[in-house]
């Protein structure tokens, strides 16, 4: 038991892990903000259609499918290790940011699109018939209703993105997991790993609980809640 809570190793690990928390949070928040923005922009482009954007739709759908199909770690490794051959030297942080944004953007686009299509068709017809333009209809009538539906699934994807920041340890970004494994290698003790595990639980358990709560409150998300066995 003692080896798991080795005080010396913990004392050595804590400052490193603490600095890792800052990196994890920066990477998570930046990726989530940019990824959600990317997904939103693509879904809006797809919904606006029009003369030019109509041709973009197949490309957006292909992007969403491809980046939901590829494992995030594979994408990260390709970006980080292949980009330099094209003369593009990305830091581990930037490569991780790019990979996380591309992955989150794909699911966020699908979530926003699903939200937009879930709004009753009559809303479009009514708004367009009052003379509103398609853009005004989308932004003033449809999106305010659609965005509400997207909150629970977006929360879950955002949490997944936050957890995926641990992948950055593979490309030597000094985030929580990376710090813990390097101190673990120095001290030959599992205590730093357990410390990191504790940090992740402290960061994400509340968020997972909130995500679950949002899901059960969702107006249309998933099956109707709780009609269990009598």
């Amino acid at each position, binding site marked *: 038991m003692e*080896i*798991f809570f080795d005080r010396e190793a913990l004392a050595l690990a804590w400052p490193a892990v603490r600095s890792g928390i800052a990196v994890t949070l920066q990477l998570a928040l930046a990726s989530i903000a940019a990824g959600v923005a990317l997904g939103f922009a693509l879904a809006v482009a797809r919904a606006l*259609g029009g003369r030019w954007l109509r041709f973009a739709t197949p490309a957006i759908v292909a992007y969403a*499918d*491809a980046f*939901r*199909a*590829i*494992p995030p*770690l*594979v*994408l990260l*490794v*390709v970006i980080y*290790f*292949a980009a330099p*051959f*094209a003369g593009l030297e990305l830091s581990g942080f930037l490569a991780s940011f790019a990979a996380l944004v591309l992955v989150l953007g794909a699911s966020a686009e699908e979530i926003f699109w*699903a939200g937009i*299509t*879930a*709004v*009753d*068709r009559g809303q*479009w*017809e009514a708004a*367009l018939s009052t003379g509103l333009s*398609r853009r005004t209809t989308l932004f003033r009538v449809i999106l305010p209703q659609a965005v509400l539906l997207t909150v629970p699934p977006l929360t879950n994807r955002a949490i997944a993105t936050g*957890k*995926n*920041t*641990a992948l950055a*340890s*593979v490309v030597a970004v000094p985030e929580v*997991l990376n710090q813990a*494994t390097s101190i*673990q290698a120095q001290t030959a*003790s*599992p205590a730093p*790993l*357990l410390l*990191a*595990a504790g940090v*992740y*639980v402290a960061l*994400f*358990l509340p*968020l*997972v*609980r909130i995500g*679950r709560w949002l899901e059960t409150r969702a107006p249309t998300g*998933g*099956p*109707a*809640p*709780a*009609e*269990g*066995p*009598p």
Partner: protein
Amino acid sequence: MSELFETFLNPAVMGESAGLLLRGLVVTVELSLLVVPAGLALGACVAVAQALAPPWLERVVSLGVDLVRAFPPLVLLVLVVHGLPFAGIELPALVGVAVALTLNTASYYGEILRAGIAGVSAGQWEAARSSGLGTTSILRFVILPQGVRKVLPDLVGNTLEAVKLTALASVVALPDLLRMARIAQGVHFNPSPLILAAALYLALLWPLARFVRRLGASKAAPDFARSRR
């Protein structure tokens, strides 16, 4: 242009590393065939336990599920593979990876199946019970078939996630597709094997992603876009 082609899609390098990558692909598929059924089975156990347990126990189980979900899968993997040996438990790498990934994916399968079971109306339980079926039979013949159908798109979606997760195995030196691609890239000092590996992952998983989209689309609201031509 041809220089880019030589760098990223070098036919000679791809040809030489194809054998290595295919061996990796086999490991990736094997690992998926271990993790998906095991995760589904464990998830089903959790979901059924939650359906039958008293409310307080259900809350304890759901907290446990959330605890597993709070770990990034890679952290869980590193804990199992590098942490357990300190407790005197030496697992072969493949088993350690399979255990960690199964735990992670089971927490999602369990949650999906729980929602599916909860979505079956109480009348189904009562009707089955009044026809004299025992609890096991009710679950097996009445509740689960309906519950699973309700959440099928989510189950398939999580299967896609589970297969994607197997790429993490490369981090702990299991010779899966990604790991083999990294080795081949190092040997040839050329990124073509990475591109080839990404293409193999896409070939494996894109059809599944399309399938998820089709399943999801069938239950979505009628497409408003058609009325806006």
